[in-house]
């Protein structure tokens, strides 16, 4: 079922498939779940992605072959593993205006009205396949293809934290201020990453995100609340 590939002298790649699909990703998360429940000796951390699990280990304590043998013992039981129900996370977004300067461009590119873009963006569930790129950045599946828009030809130097954007067939949220070329359609007052909070990260791999539209007034009110909670 799995493919095993060493990656340097301290990492083992466990490959669950060659595609981006809910089935392959679920297999990855099932193995992640098992390794979280019963950590293997010498494994320092495990990083899930769409179709792989990167197993980081301490070569002073274990090696690739031993880890492979141990994981192969878990493999046959994975079908029976029941993943905990995914958490549903609602992300409130103020669309358009100053907080979403590219909403009109996304609408124009796809021959839609701005309200239709918002309706399409808020009407589906987005599974979190993986996190990466920056702390708290979620790779989401599920966006309606009618919203696909190419990246901006010139990337912005600074994109504010909380910005919600579209790049090709992907949508995502910038957790920290960073440069980037995504089309920005709105902004959320939520903090996806905050090291001062007990749950540093708002979203886990496997969670389901749903966007809800809010007004500018509500955005500022929620932003104020988020900041006063610290």
């Amino acid at each position, binding site marked *: 079922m799995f493919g095993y590939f060493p990656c*340097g002298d301290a990492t083992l790649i466990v490959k669950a498939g060659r595609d981006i699909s809910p089935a392959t990703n679920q297999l990855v998360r099932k193995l992640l779940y098992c390794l979280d429940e019963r950590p293997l000796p010498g494994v320092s951390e495990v990083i899930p992605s769409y179709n*792989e699990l990167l197993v980081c280990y301490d070569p002073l304590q274990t090696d690739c072959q031993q880890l492979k043998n141990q994981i192969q013992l878990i493999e046959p039981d994975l079908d029976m593993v029941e993943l905990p129900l995914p958490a549903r996370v609602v992300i409130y977004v103020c669309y358009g205006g100053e907080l979403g300067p590219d909403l009109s461009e996304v609408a124009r590119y796809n021959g839609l009205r701005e309200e239709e873009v918002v309706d399409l963006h808020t009407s589906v569930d987005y599974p979190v396949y993986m996190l990466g790129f920056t702390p708290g950045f979620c790779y989401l599946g599920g966006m309606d293809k009618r919203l696909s828009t190419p990246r901006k030809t010139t990337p912005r130097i600074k994109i504010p934290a909380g910005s919600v954007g579209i790049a090709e067939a992907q949508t995502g949220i910038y957790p920290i201020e960073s440069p980037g070329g995504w089309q920005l359609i709105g902004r959320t007052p939520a903090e996806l990453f905050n090291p001062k909070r007990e749950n540093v990260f708002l979203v886990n791999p496997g969670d389901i995100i749903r966007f809800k539209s809010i007004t500018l007034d509500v955005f500022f009110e929620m932003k104020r609340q988020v900041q006063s909670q610290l």
Partner: protein
Amino acid sequence: MASIVIEKPGFLSTVQDLGRFGFQRYGMPVAGAMDAFSLQLANSLVGNPHGAAGIEATLLGPDIRFISGGMAAFCGSGMRGFLNNKHVDAYKSFSVSAGDLLRFEMDRCGCRMYIAFAGGLDVPVVMGSKSTYLRSGTGGFHGRALKEGDEIPLGQAPEKCPIKEIPASLLPDYAKKDPIRIIPGPEIRRLSKEGLISLLTTPYRVGDQSDRMGYRLEGEKINLNNESHDIISSGVCTGTLQLPGNGQPIMLMADHQTTGGYMRMAVVASVDLTRAAQLRAGDSICFAEISINKAQTLFRARNRELACLTNNKPDTSPGSRPPS
């Protein structure tokens, strides 16, 4: 309370331990000392746990005023140290008195020096580590590079220090231009025969756009068989040599993103990350292939020797896990 004051910050000085582990699945980079081995050596010289937080200085070292007496040491390369204008050796501990000034001058080669203080730097532990991750402003001293006037408290100094200098067998020879040893990565088969020859026989220059995230390497274009440079975004580890479409490798270092979409052509042997961390922009490097077994044997041997230095009990302080 014991402390130090930064009188001049140098080019880029940050608080680092061995890194922040356990959060890469959330996209949080490990950060930590680029040359973790040198930080461990410096800590062992002042009797600290190997993973205690120290200063990572880059190219141009900081000026550090001691507000209280104690022990200090520095290991790594790229600069020469002076205590009250008198030369002090790297890889040896020295005692300091209140009011002393430690400063550094740039050296001809090398890049990073690790300065350890008895008791370690007493900054808050954030997500299990004292390391600074600059991009998100997390950890270290207020999440940023050190600035003029910063006063950093020191922890409780250990009662005694078991060693005074690092034995010759553990001294890294940074001047030696041996190739950096690499282990073939999961996508190595995508290289053409000529591509593999380019990688293993021609020199690469460390590009100007190189930092704690990674090095952009410049040299002979590495060609592929008729295949793509891209992979489905997947996890990457420190030392990974990615190959983007322009055929010029990127070497991922301490602050690297946790996932990437470029093929993983090869991975630097853990034992050679210390030399890789001492490269500066403009340096030229070559690569040589090594097997996983050989790389692990070398890594284990060096760590046995490191452990023997102080006969340390297992180290459980935050951020003290060995980089994997």
